[in-house]
Each structure stands twice: as C-alpha cells, then as structure tokens.
C-alpha cells in the first residue's frame, strides 16, 4: 500500500553516547545517523548489546547524546529545558515498552488518562478519550481493572492506548512483543500496523530480524554500537541502501568513515510497502 511520506520528524546527526564506567568509557553508540519521516514504519534492529536501547532512548529524547545533535521536529533537543522536553515528549511521542510499564496503582482507564493529565487536558475530555482508545484496542470492558488483573497481551494493548492518548505523531515501541507469546505478539503488531496505515509514524526497536522485515519500511541494523547497514523495502524485498549511499558519497567526493558520517537520505520513493 502506498503511503505518502511527509516531513522529517526525528533526526540524529552523528550521535554518540558514551557512559563513564570507572576509569574507562563504554561507547554504547558511535556516530549514528538516523532519520524518520512522517508516516514511516522504521525498525531499529540489533542483537543484545548492539546499542539499540540507547538509540531508542535518544530517539525518544529520554536521554541526551554525548556528542552529536538530535532534532525533534526541527528543534535541537539539547536547547530545550528538561520540562519543555517532557512536555514535547508527552505530546509528540507515544511510548510502548517491552515490559508494558503500566502504573500498577492506577486502573487501565486511569493509566490511559495519565499522559493527558500531564498535558493539562480536562478530566471529562481525558475520560472520554481514554474510553475511545480502549474501545480501539478492544479493552473497554476492562477499563476499571488494575494492570495486575489483566493478561500481558491486554497490558500491551493498554500501553498502545496510552501511547495514543495525546494523539502523538510518532509511536516508539521498544520490543513490543518481547514479553508476549507469538499469538498475542501478532495481535499487538497488528494494532501497530493498523496505526501506521492510519498515518502514524512507528519506530520499533527489536532484536528479531524477521519481525523487523515483516512490518518495517526501513530497518536500521546496529551492531556493537555502530550502524551496520540500512535496508529499505522495495516491493517485497529489502535492499541495502548503505552501499548505494556510500558510493554516491564517494562519487561526490565526500569522505566516508565506515559509513557513519554519510548522510543517509531515504528519498521520496521509500514509502512503498
């Protein structure tokens, strides 16, 4: 299905994240170039320790890079105050976590209402929207239950509803099926796919290459804290666009260092799935 690709929403420019550990420094992520266009389904793929969680934290503006710049909707996030950043995050990004991360003391409905409370939405509006969203994920009959009283798959659907509370532009899903069995994982992925078809940008972090290639338009492959390659869906198969870009860059005389300093342009024809 053809999707109209719109403006660039998130961009990481030459981003590195280093953690001091005793006397040494752990380079969790080095020279990452990453961009997401509105309406895309992007996967960040990598095995354990590849830096994908670090990448997700940076993309979700939960963390600041040691080097490099992150643009969220064209604004450099390092220039925003922590509170402004929280507000923007709450408004523009919806998070879905592997371990669901629902607040146990709040009911399903209250969990969905919470992001709206942080945005100052009125109680009536919050309640109405939460009910609407829970209907969307087919959990309106579980609204007054506590997270401890529903199944893992249901919790993840609540998390999806919560991520949509403020009608964000992008959904950031960190291993959304990681704690679920195949069947419930499929249901959750079905919801994400549906949302993407409705125009939401989805960024999914996963260690499962099959899952990445089944749903995503673009896959960023990370290994040992570095970007190994970027693949894009063309028709029914994925092509490695990293080499192409490197080649283009070389032809244009731009120095390339292991592909990490080469700007990767997705191009307008990449929204085909």
């Amino acid at each position, binding site marked *: 299905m053809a999707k109209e690709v719109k403006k660039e929403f998130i961009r990481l420019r030459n981003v590195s994240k280093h953690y001091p550990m005793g006397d040494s420094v752990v380079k969790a992520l080095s020279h990452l170039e990453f961009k997401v266009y509105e309406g895309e389904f992007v996967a960040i793929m990598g095995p354990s320790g590849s830096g994908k969680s670090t990448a997700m934290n940076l993309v*979700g503006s*939960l963390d600041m890079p040691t080097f490099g710049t992150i643009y969220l909707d064209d604004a450099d996030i390092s220039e925003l105050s922590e509170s402004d950043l929280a507000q923007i995050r709450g408004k523009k990004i919806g998070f879905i976590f592997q371990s669901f*991360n629902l*607040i146990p003391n*709040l009911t399903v409905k209250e969990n969905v209402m*919470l992001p709206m409370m*942080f*945005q100052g939405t009125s109680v009536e509006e919050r309640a109405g929207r939460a009910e609407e969203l829970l209907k969307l994920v087919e959990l309106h009959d579980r609204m007054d239950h506590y997270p401890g009283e529903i199944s893992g798959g249901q919790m993840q659907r609540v998390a999806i509803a919560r991520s949509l509370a403020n009608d964000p532009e992008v959904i950031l899903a960190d291993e959304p099926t990681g704690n679920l069995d195949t069947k419930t994982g499929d249901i959750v992925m079905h919801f994400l796919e549906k949302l993407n078809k409705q125009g939401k940008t989805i960024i999914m972090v996963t260690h499962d290459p099959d899952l990445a290639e089944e749903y995503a338009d673009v896959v960023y492959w990370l290994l040992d804290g570095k970007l190994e390659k970027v693949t894009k869906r063309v028709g029914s198969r994925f092509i490695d666009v990293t080499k192409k870009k490197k080649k283009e860059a070389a032809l244009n005389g731009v120095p390339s260092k292991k592909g990490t300093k080469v700007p990767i342009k997705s191009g307008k024809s990449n929204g085909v799935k």
Partner: protein
Amino acid sequence: MNLDYLILALKNLRHRGIRSWLTLLGIFIGVTAVVALIGLGNGLQAAVSAQFGISSTEIITVQAGGLNAYGPPGSGVVNSLTKDDARAIENIGSVNRVLPRYIQTGKLEFNDRVIFGFASNVPRGDDADFMYEVNDLEIDKGRMLGGSDSNKVVLGANFFVDKVGLEKEVVLGDNVLVQDKSFRVVGILKKKGSFVWDSIVLMDQVALEDLFDTGDDVDVIVAHIKDPDLMDRAAEDIAKLLRKRRDVDEGEEDFEVSTPEATMETVNSILGGVQAFIIIIASISILVGALGIVNTMTTSVLERKKEIGIMKAIGGTNWQIFMQFFFESGLLGLIGGLVGAVLGTLISVAGVAGINSFLGSDMTPVVDFMLIGMALFGSFMIGAIAGIVPAMSAAKQNPVEALRG
C-alpha cells in the same frame, strides 16, 4: 490541575502498605494529645470556674486560712474571721456592701437515711437577692427563701436529681432534719455544675447561726466593690485592714483575699503549665512523625523509581512529579492528623464526661473546630514539608535510569 495531583496522591495512598501507615503514628499521637488536652483543658477551666461559683466580677472574697484556698471554705481554721471584720471591711470607701457567709458541714436526715453535706446562709432583706445574684443561684422548683422563712430550706439540685444517697428524691413540701431540727423544703435550685452548690442546704441566716452555734465567727466575707476598676485597690485595702486587725505582718497573712480575676489567673497558670508540658511532648511526637514521613516518602521514591521513569517518558515534567509526591506526603500527614483529631476529640469529650461525674458538674464538652482545623492544616503542612526533599529527589530522577527501576 492541583486537584489531579490530589486525586492521584489519594489513589497511590490507597495502595500503601501497613509500613507507611505506621510511620504516621508520631503525627497521630501528637495531634491526639494536642486536641484531647486542649479540649480537656478548656473543659477543666470551665469546670473550675463553675466550682468557684461567682459570676460577678466586682466581688472580693475573704476567707481565713490562707494556705487552704481550694479546700472547703473555713475548714481547719483556727483564727476565724468575725462579724466585726465584716463590718470593718464595709467601712472601706471602695466597698459597696458586705455579706458574711457561712458554709457549715452538718448532717441531714430524710427517708430514714443520714447524709453529711454543706449548709449555707441566706441573709435577710435586700442582701438575700444580692447573695443569689453574686452566687448566680436560680430557683428551679418552688421559691427562694424570704424574710420569715426561719424553719424552711432551699436545696441544691442534686437532692432532686441524684437523690444524694437518700434513695428517694426530695420534693417540695417534704420535711428534712438538719442537725436534728426539722425544716420544710420550699425550693430546689437549678443545677449549677458545682458540687458544693448542687448539694447545698440554704437556710435563713439567723436559723443557721443558732443551729450551728457560730457565735461571732463567719466563714467567708464577700465584699461587693463599687467599681470594677477599684478591685485591686480594694483588695489591697482589705488585706491591709485585716493585717492590722489580726496583727500579722505582710507576707504572713492567715487569711486570703481573692478577686475572681486572681482566682482564674491561678487556675489558668496551673492549666497553662500542664498544657505547655503536653504541647512540648506533642511537638516532639509530631517531629518524630515528620521524620517518619521523610523516611517513608524516601523509601517510596526508591520503590517507585520505575513509575517515575514511566511518568517522565509519557510527558510528566519535573514540577508535575514533584507536586504528586508533595501532595502525597501532605496527605499522609493529613490522614495522621485526621485520625488524631477524631480520637483527640473523643478523648476530650470522654474526659469532660469524667470531670462531670467526678465533680458533679454539668459541663457540655467543647469541640473546638478552630483547633481541629488548625491541627488538620498543620498536619498537612508538616507532611508536605517533610515530603519536599523526597519529592525533589523524585523529580530529579533521570528518566532512562528511572525506567530501569
């Protein structure tokens, strides 16, 4: 918006473990102590005032003894006051008039039972009404004593209400034997809240003097002063006169001159001392309670680190997270205060009932809503202040680290 934090804080408190509630004991005990004892103190003060039984502020009472001011008047006194003393006091310029008062202990017989109690005099003429007024006495049944009532009595309310050990209430028209002499009951006094007055036997002054053979002695001299502004001056003059008449030096008086104000001051200073002591103990308790809240909130921030991370991820600002923990902490304090205020009020009501049954008084318990309101506001503030540091540490959590839990 603030209401949201309050609701959220309440929801979180609902899921608190017993440990959190136990840390409230300090606040709870402190507030209970303050509310109960201030309530009791007010009750006690009113009860003590009623015991003195004097409503007018222009009255000075003089009694012999000096060291025995709060015992039954005139008891154990060697060197009694005399009628001459009373006349001499009446001649002081600031004194309007003087009433010699007798409060005698004697036996009363009725319904084949014998009890011992107090008898007091009703002076003749105008002085009778003055005596009733000064002592705030009102008739409940029948009538007061008049000029020719030498073989009649008016009894305190307890004779009718409690039967005072006679196992049968005394009613108007009954005859009672006082010191083996028969008197007819013509009136019952209204309940006054004072053990002495509610058990009193009032009789004509001349009859009492004969019956108890008082001679020249009087138990108490009540002096009515012309102007309230002259009270201190008059008290001084009376003391000076009596020192001279009884030949004692200043500071070694064998009599006591007291104004209602001075009496209340003494009572208040004793009660004030007790209350100050209680308030110090309550403050220590509340301080311990506040530290308990600091402790429980700090633990809570650590335990709910992941929750803080989630809230930050879904858009909670530092201020919003601070406010949530701040309100939660304030509510913890408020709940401690609320339980304390309820229990404290119950204790003070029970205490007043205790005072009533012990002193035979008729106090209605005073529920001081202002005090309760202040205690509740104070507990919320103590909780909230105790929560500031933990709430700040919650707000400052790094979202990524917090999400790791």
